[in-house]
């Protein structure tokens, strides 16, 4: 760990950001590549996304305001927000804890755990939903009937939606924090320990302040991912109008019921939140790495 730290410092020192631009030769290839990249991103991302905005406001702001007048839609938006907050809280606690363990300690099976933690990113959302139903399903699940006996309904209910959402967003916080923790090292904490600081004091006054931007970044990514989860939630929620229907499920519902305006308006709201998240991240990131 210590040698990577030295390596990083040695490598970043002689290459200051500002020296780069004048050293790049502008050849026709440069302009050609710039044009290809711009056109590709314009056709794939910018133009389609901008069309959602124009479609939403085709008839003025009425489409947006009518969303908030529909009580079922308000419930759906509230449910999405509620689930996303839970997912962020759970994944932040779990992420900070497991990242500290992975970076600071050696234990058997660490490499396997490290690899498995990335699994939720590459598993299909439908498989996530199926997996949760198989274990927590009220009728035939492995644990579902027992939990139902205790009065806890998981599947087709809010806890199931929270679990599905937490599952798909799980690796994001860890992926942010592990590199930051590796970079800061343990010297400061050891110094604090030798001066008599308790474990909690060391965490609260040294570790937490130095990883706070990593946590903020992780929270933003987790929030965006959680608000937008669709497939896994579709399987576990049952999509009951006004009860377990989230905002993303409402987009599908509205579109299939030929309420295109409503679908575009809901999509616009969700897209606004995720674009806001990316912009916040883009503003935070340079500070973090400065």
């Amino acid at each position, binding site marked *: 760990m210590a040698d990577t730290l030295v390596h990083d410092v040695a490598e970043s020192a002689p290459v200051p950001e500002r020296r780069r631009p004048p050293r790049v030769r502008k050849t026709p290839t440069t302009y050609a590549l710039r044009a290809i990249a711009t056109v590709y991103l314009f056709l794939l991302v910018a133009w*389609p996304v901008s069309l959602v905005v124009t479609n939403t406001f085709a008839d003025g702001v009425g489409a947006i305001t009518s969303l908030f007048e529909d009580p079922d839609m308000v419930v759906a938006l509230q449910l999405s927000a509620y689930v996303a907050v839970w997912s962020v809280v759970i994944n932040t606690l779990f992420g900070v804890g497991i990242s500290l363990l992975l970076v600071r300690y050696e234990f058997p099976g660490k490499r396997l755990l490290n690899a498995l933690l990335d699994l939720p990113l590459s598993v299909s959302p439908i498989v996530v939903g199926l997996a949760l139903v198989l274990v927590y399903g009220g009728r035939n699940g492995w644990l579902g009937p027992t939990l139902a006996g205790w009065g806890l309904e998981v599947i087709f209910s809010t806890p199931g939606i929270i679990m599905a959402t937490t599952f798909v967003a799980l690796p994001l916080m860890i992926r942010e924090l592990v590199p930051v923790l590796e970079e800061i090292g343990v010297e400061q904490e050891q110094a604090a320990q030798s001066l008599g600081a308790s474990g909690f004091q060391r965490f609260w006054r040294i570790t937490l302040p130095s990883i706070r931007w990593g946590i903020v970044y992780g929270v933003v990514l987790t929030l965006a991912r959680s608000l937008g989860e669709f497939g896994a939630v579709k399987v576990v929620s049952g999509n009951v109008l006004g009860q377990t229907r989230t905002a993303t499920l409402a987009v599908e519902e509205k579109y299939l019921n030929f309420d295109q305006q409503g679908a575009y308006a809901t*999509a616009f709201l969700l897209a606004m939140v995720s674009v806001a998240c990316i912009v916040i991240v883009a503003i935070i990131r340079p500070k973090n790495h400065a």
Partner: protein
Amino acid sequence: MTSTEIAAVRPARTPRRSGPRNTLTRSSGLGLGIAMIWFSALVLIPLAAVVVTAADGGWQAFWNTITGPQTAAAIRLTVFTALSVTAVNVVMGPLIAWVLVRDRFWGKSVLEVMIDIPFALPTIVAGLVLLSLYGDADSPLGIDIANERPAVFLAFLFVTLPFVVRMVQPVLEELELDVEEAAASLGASRFTTFRRIILPSLTPAITAGAALSFARGVSEYGSLVLLSGNLPFKTEVTSVRILSSIENDNVVAAASVATVLLAISLAVIVLLDVIQRRVAARG
């Protein structure tokens, strides 16, 4: 160059290989225990339940399910499309990363933000977004591929956009321009410099990004719902196949197809781990 580096690194590494060390204290051990219980309850036990349920039906039933004509067609379409999208990303990803790192022009920060949009945008919204330009009767481009095979390709292309770019970008930023300039001053053409100097250092990042984008493509669901129409034998992908089995209460069939997807995810995870070790070993 690399051989001396490895030689320099090796003595430092050997003590670590002497056996699995355990530096857990009592409180950190307790923390690990709690974290593992939660991770098992949320991820490991449910995923194991998928495999166990698939195995319940026996090997023959499993094989019959995944080779059934409709399912096999869905798996073929998904894997083939994910592979071709990955091929496009392997070319476009490094190209975009190069433009973002080496080029300076007005509006570059906007491109930077656009790369992340597919990652942050809810998948169902991504489908709707693509539909408005490429699948609408009054599309400004006059293109309507809704419910056609190219729609699946387009949806995969959109959602996998960030992976190769974001893997390659940091590596490209770390590359020293001096080495390229040295090569150029020794008479290497730009193409030779690219092929002999830049490409080898980018290969691990490109491979990792390609693996992630393949895995994401294979498991995609949300963006296809509105865009592809989910027509059997035509635009139906594996995830949709699993969902319809779930809806028909055929859990064993759903679990069997899901096991195939899980195997692909696991293969990708293992590949990524191997690449990480290689890069770390290289220093």
